[in-house]
């Protein structure tokens, strides 16, 4: 990546683009966008490969049966990675790195990323969706619960931001 990366898109126009994709999803699929469900399905497939009977008899993953990956949001997640790849390649924005503040240790950033990941994995199952499936999709449908989720998401983020700010210290 010798050439410098292209600048990001105007955020408002990017929003219109994203909103149009969401609208297309409503009109064609009859369902909005989602990401965490895809991950949860992958998790179920993983757990199935390790402990099949246990997973099939478990209350949450069990109802997805033996082929949890045969689900539209799994394909959407794969598509999201691919789309990200195409776009990042085109804009020369691929760089292998651990993103963190210069002054923060690698261990700190890795632990935060892992623990944060576990929390969002758990929380998105609890709330039946994440930023995509609840906040964005449900928000666009003006569903009360999804908007409550969106507000709480920012509340939680701002409350915790102070305590994890060190990872971005330069």
């Amino acid at each position, binding site marked *: 990546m010798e050439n410098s990366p292209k600048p990001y898109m105007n955020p408002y126009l990017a929003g*219109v683009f994203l909103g149009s994709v969401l609208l297309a999803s*409503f009109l064609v699929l009859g369902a909005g966008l989602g990401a*965490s469900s895809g991950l949860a399905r992958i998790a179920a497939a993983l757990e199935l490969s390790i402990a099949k009977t246990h997973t099939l008899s478990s209350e949450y993953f069990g109802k997805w049966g033996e082929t949890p990956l045969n689900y539209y949001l799994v394909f959407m997640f794969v598509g999201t990675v691919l789309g990200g790849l195409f776009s990042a390649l085109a804009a020369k*924005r691929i760089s292998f790195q651990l993103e963190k503040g210069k002054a923060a240790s690698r261990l700190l950033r890795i632990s935060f990323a892992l623990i944060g990941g576990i929390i969002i994995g758990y929380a998105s199952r609890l709330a039946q969706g994440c930023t995509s499936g609840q906040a964005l999709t449900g928000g666009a449908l003006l569903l009360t619960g999804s908007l409550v989720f969106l507000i709480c998401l920012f509340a939680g983020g701002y409350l915790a931001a102070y305590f994890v700010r060190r990872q971005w210290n330069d």
Partner: protein
Amino acid sequence: MIDTLYSLNILDTSLALLISLVLGILFGVALEKAGFGSSRRLSGIFYFKDMAVLKVMFTALITAMLGLLYAQALGLISVESVYLMPTIYGAQIIGGLLFGIGFVMSGWCPGTAAVGLASGKWDALICILGAILGSILFNETFHFIQPLYTNGNQGILFLSDSLHLSKGVTAFLFTIIGIAAFWGVEKIEQKVTGKSEYLGSQFLKIFSFVLFSAALGLMLIYGQTTRKALVYPFFKNTQTACLFSEQALLQKVEEAQDHIAAEELAERLLNNNQEVLLVDVRPENEYANFHIKGAVNIRLSDLSEQLIGYKNQGIIVLYSNGMTHPAQARDSLNRQGFNNVYILTDGLLGFVDLCLKPVALRSEPVPDGLAQKINLWRGYFLGQAKGQKGVEEVRNFAHKAPGLIDTQWLSENYKKPDMKILDLRSQNEYNTSHIPGSLAISPESFRGVVKGVPSVLLPAAILSQTISLMGIKPNDFVVLVYGEKPHDATLVSMVFERLGHENYGILNGGFLKWQSEGRLVDTELPKVIDSSYRLNYADNFTVYYKTVLQAIKDKDAIILDVRPQDYYLGQKSDEARAGHIPGAINRPYTEDIRKADKYSLFKTVDELTTAYKSIIPTNASKIIVHCRTGHQASQTFFILKNLLGYTNVYWYDGGWTEWSARKELPIK
């Protein structure tokens, strides 16, 4: 009207998966282009350094929201064909707070982490692995977290309903807040980082103006909270070109194209016009007192559920005493994609005045032609309550119908021309021996998947076709003959209930009793001349899960779960979840049947009366019966309504199959 893959229930086909992949790719491109492949940029919002997340997200949200509402206004799509998530306050508040903490810690959310991964960010990979672990952890702790998972479940709840505003106003306010937020965060960026790319820029001004205008237009279309019922619906049939033309709109109102005149309705009903479904939306007692002949009574709140099978088929005419309620209901139905709903000009009072008032009592002279018509109408609408000629003749040889009939009576009457005997046993049983003249029909031919719910009774339009193919006419007396299971006959009785065909009976003891008494059988196929059974809709007894949910909340109905006890207790289950509807009483359907040595009989009315007296306080108590698929519950319904004379019995056909599969519904 677009049929989405979700509404067609084909989200699991390879086509749907391929489309999802493509949409995913576009989703990924959008996120990446917005710069969401960087955790540093994403978490910038929490430190007021980079507010891109808010700008992108709210713009996307508003774009899709306005787009979808416009699509609905244009009649492109109905909101029912989009998957809607339930509002569950507990889960969404705690889930949201936790999610926010995880978001600021990891710097990612699932969708952006996918893009981060594609951009080579190691922390995105770690976050994704964490999220997978978190999902597994959720599965493993589901048992403990389940109370929270369903805590505060409100079902599908729109912000407009929470705020008691119309959808248009809600969307408009939301857009205004969004625009204010854009300007606010640009200011914040300027303060914190010293520069703002868009604050006060030409771009942001134009952008804000476009959003504002789009939301304003939408609000005008959807009308104010005061429900200008007459204004909106005409957009349905008009094209985009005149969408914004107030004048064209008002003209339509002026021309009253959504009205049907009393005289026209009277003529159509008199001529047995099959296309008209007349719906009385007044309270039950007023309906019971007097209604226009042929009308069915549906509560305003149940309209959209009950009428779904008539969406854009034939015409639906709503009436009340006046016109306000029907106009509001029509407005609401229109928003749900119905474009065949009309209201009766001047309501019931107008109808009575114009069509039924005796000529002699009128202050103005009436032309001869009209006078004749008025007399015809009076004869038709004010004559017999049930009115169909021939019914009386059939009743001469019939028992009280609907009801049970015995084998002796049938053996004396089975050859009568107006008698139609339906044999509900299996094909080979029928082929080897049946009551002379009986027709073979499987109870399953009346059921199917409706709106994704399996094994529910088909819409009246389809039922009347099947009935026509069997040559049954509205005046025929129908005898239902079961094999071993009396509830096969009661399931088919629901077909006739739905069509308002009350002239039927169930052979008590079924074919096996007939056979064991050595009565005449043969193997010949009957001659059938197909009829054109009038499409009639008398179903005000089938309820849907929302009604049941409401009944639980209001505690105004007895819910009878007639499944076997072990299913009720959740010890056995063939469905998505085990257990029962909170507050439901278990009265297994098998309790109502007595086994003789070779056949099954309904218990005597005395026995049944005693049994149900201990469960149901009065004959007018509201009762909702259900089982797994509606089959067993049809038997309890038949007994309560037709044998014991309970007047307020409802049938939740979707039953446990649907209830257990709708995870947002409470169970015990």
